[in-house]
């Protein structure tokens, strides 16, 4: 049944495409004579239904190249990185950002609500909540080039950083304590091969007013600065749950990264990303209080995963400027180091796993030396604590930009034991994983845990006792339903057949409305779709209730080939422009993005749902 309806929808799409192509050609203002000259119009006035005009090209076969394709890169000419010895260096933990003393201590003028263009600020819009949620802590960050070693057997790399480290410094914040981050663009004149020296820093999953969100088109150039106001406030504070917001909308593991339109992949690959953690009275960062999750920072560890390519001759980082499908690296980095080790004590840890991209999907297992599994608990998806921990014996899948907070218990292992974070998901090209799970011995072991002999206490909650965290917020009837199809045509990534432009407002959401969004994946490709500002709940995935791990709040949804997912949203509190986009950053930069605006009027987009079910 599901297959039939999918086929029908694909056929409808083909018909739509064909008529759209005709409309486009007519809209391109060719005269009838031109069209006839070009062989596109018969004398009877019909457009000639040739391939390309009529419908999509014939369907092509399944993705992948069969077998274990690790190390195989289908894009001709993509280099294979030089060999590196694994586990030579300890995994770095990014430094914690330190606020300046007060607003006076910031370089430049005092922060203000209106953009300070005269003093070199790149912001163009006024802060929405500067007076109602005034900043309590002030940070200053400089985007600079720095020499970074990613592995001792490779040369030092000139990367782009926030304050000199990759990942950037971790912001540690509390709900109810707004921050202001003064963000300076001090990037060098030379980009060294890729990247562009204009930036827009997005706080990923922040309930952030539009002008501080890091919208892709809010980029600013070298020597400019930008005050980003992060209210650190729970959704609903000005609407459904005044005055502090809905505690069940708490999020914990956020990250920030560059979002410059058309150049996000290059700039993030070059290093511009870091963590932003939020605590509250339940998720306290102290294992003796609240939910009693492992104490930050000793036993609560952020880990950013990236895959990268290095030139076999020079050993320098390579970004493939000619790839539009998705870039797959053959070197695996955790917190900026290739295959590091990490010493752990014999107790429970909270790891905040983040897939920092650009294009690879992971399925992480904890593998013992004999290649058997060590089970662990997933406690948060996209940085949002689930109602209860979920024990996994089959690893956890993490698409680009997804986060999974997990609890791993090392207490049963003798000192000297080694374990591995092991990616066992096969992926051969940017299209997405093949869904084959390779054997543990064939996986990418991206990090080695070394169990130490230190005596240590563990005051954290045992996930096996099934502790409760936040409830999933109740849904309400939707005011609006919108439908989106993520596909590819003529090598262009499209959403509902359209491409991105900064000034193209595709639809308007009415502030405080509840909405259902239906996202449909295209043929032969997978996309992790990220929607800014509000979290969603997955109501249905391909008609079914989602898995326990997906039954929470999320900001990224994985769209497999031809998947249909139904999302519930409530857009509250702030207005302005926000994007929805694929977070395979190569797809994103090739126009798989749209802009929607939140205002107090809204509009309907239901016509696009006509082809549904």
């Amino acid at each position, binding site marked *: 049944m599901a297959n039939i309806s999918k086929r029908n929808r694909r056929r409808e799409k083909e018909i739509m495409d064909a008529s759209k192509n005709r409309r486009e050609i007519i809209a391109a203002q060719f005269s009838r004579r031109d069209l006839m000259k070009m062989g596109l119009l018969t004398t009877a006035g019909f457009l000639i239904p040739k391939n390309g005009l009529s419908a999509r090209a014939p369907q092509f076969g399944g993705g992948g190249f069969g077998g274990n394709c690790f190390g195989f890169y289908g894009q001709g*000419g993509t280099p294979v990185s030089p060999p590196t010895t694994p586990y030579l260096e300890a995994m770095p933990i990014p430094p914690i950002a330190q606020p300046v003393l007060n607003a006076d201590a910031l370089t430049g003028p005092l922060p203000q609500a209106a953009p300070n263009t005269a003093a070199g600020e790149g912001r163009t819009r006024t802060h929405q909540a500067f007076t109602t949620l005034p900043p309590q802590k002030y940070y200053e960050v400089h985007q600079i080039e720095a020499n970074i070693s990613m592995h001792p057997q490779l040369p030092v790399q000139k990367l782009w950083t926030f304050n000199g480290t990759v990942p950037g410094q971790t912001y540690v914040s509390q709900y109810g304590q707004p921050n202001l981050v003064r963000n300076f663009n001090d990037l060098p004149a030379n980009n060294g091969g890729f990247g562009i020296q204009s930036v827009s820093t997005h706080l990923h999953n922040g309930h952030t007013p539009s002008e501080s969100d890091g919208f892709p088109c809010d980029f600013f150039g070298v020597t400019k600065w930008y005050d980003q106001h992060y209210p650190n406030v729970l959704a609903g504070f000005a609407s459904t749950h005044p005055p502090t917001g809905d505690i069940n909308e708490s999020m914990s593991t956020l990250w920030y990264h560059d979002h410059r339109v058309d150049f996000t992949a290059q700039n993030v690959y070059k290093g511009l990303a870091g963590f932003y953690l939020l605590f509250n009275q339940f998720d306290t960062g102290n294992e003796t209080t609240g939910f009693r999750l492992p104490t930050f920072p000793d036993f609560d560890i952020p880990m950013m995963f990236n895959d990268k390519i290095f030139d076999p001759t020079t050993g320098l980082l390579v970004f493939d400027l000619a790839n539009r499908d998705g870039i797959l690296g053959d070197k695996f980095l955790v917190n900026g180091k290739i295959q590091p080790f990490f010493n752990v004590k014999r107790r429970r840890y909270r790891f905040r796993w983040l897939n920092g991209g650009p294009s690879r999907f992971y399925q992480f297992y904890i593998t013992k030396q004999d290649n058997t599994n060590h089970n662990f608990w997933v406690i948060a998806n996209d940085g949002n604590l689930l109602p209860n921990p979920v024990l996994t014996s089959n690893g956890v899948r993490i698409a680009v930009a997804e986060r999974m907070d997990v609890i791993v218990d090392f207490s049963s292992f003798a000192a000297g034991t080694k374990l591995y974070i092991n990616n066992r998901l096969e992926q051969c090209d940017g299209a997405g994983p093949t869904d084959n799970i390779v054997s543990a011995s064939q996986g990418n072991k991206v990090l080695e845990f070394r169990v130490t002999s230190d005596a240590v206490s563990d005051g954290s909650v045992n996930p096996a006792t099934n502790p409760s965290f936040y409830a999933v917020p109740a849904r309400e009837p939707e005011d609006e339903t919108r439908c989106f199809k993520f596909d590819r045509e003529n090598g262009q990534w499209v959403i509902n057949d359209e491409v991105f432009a900064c000034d193209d407002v595709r639809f308007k959401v009415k502030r405080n409305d509840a909405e259902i969004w239906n996202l449909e994946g295209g043929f032969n490709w997978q996309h992790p779709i990220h929607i800014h500002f509000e979290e969603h709940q997955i109501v249905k995935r391909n008609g079914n209730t989602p898995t326990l791990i997906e039954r929470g709040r999320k900001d990224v949804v994985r769209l497999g080939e031809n998947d249909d997912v139904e999302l519930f949203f409530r857009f509250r509190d702030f207005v302005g422009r926000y994007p929805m986009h694929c977070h395979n950053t190569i797809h994103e930069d090739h126009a798989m993005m749209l802009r929607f605006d939140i205002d107090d009027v809204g509009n309907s987009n239901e016509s696009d749902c006509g082809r549904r079910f």
Partner: protein
Amino acid sequence: MNRRSLLAALAVTRSSRVDDQSRAVTRARYFPNVELTTHEGKKVRFYDDLIKDKIVVINLMYADCEGICPTITANLVKAQKLLGARIGRDIFMYSLTLSPEKDTPAALNHYAKMHGVKPGWQFLTGKPEDIEMLRRSLGFSTGNQKLDKDKTNHIGMVKYGNERREWWGMVPGKAKPTWIVESILWMDETNVKPPAG
């Protein structure tokens, strides 16, 4: 000093500011210096004559394309109009044929005339193997082999860049001409302001 040598001198001074080593790597990886023929019958070297030190806009087409090419060409014609005198002065437009066997310089000349293309935008043909190498190295191919063989399905993106600064992006050819122009103008290093709206 005449205008031409002034511009050349400017280019030299400017290029000494950039990282020539990474530029050489980028050039070797993406910009093979193959010989091409313009729609006006002129022989040119791809890197030396068309790319080096320039802001460029590159797309693929073929004269008898019935799919998306006419739309893209029409959008680029409008973009050329909007960019006015800058095209041919510091911004250059290139359309590479995907049918070098059929698209002789004369055929491309006819195509350019039919679409109202102005000077500063060159249509290029060459040896089929050179064109294929360019298509792949410039990023107009895909790792999906079947999709890659379908000529009608691979020509929608327009590459734009500033060779001296090593800035390279792509904009969809089906985008509004104003948006294509906006994207191209980002490659002008004096223009880093975000779009309005």
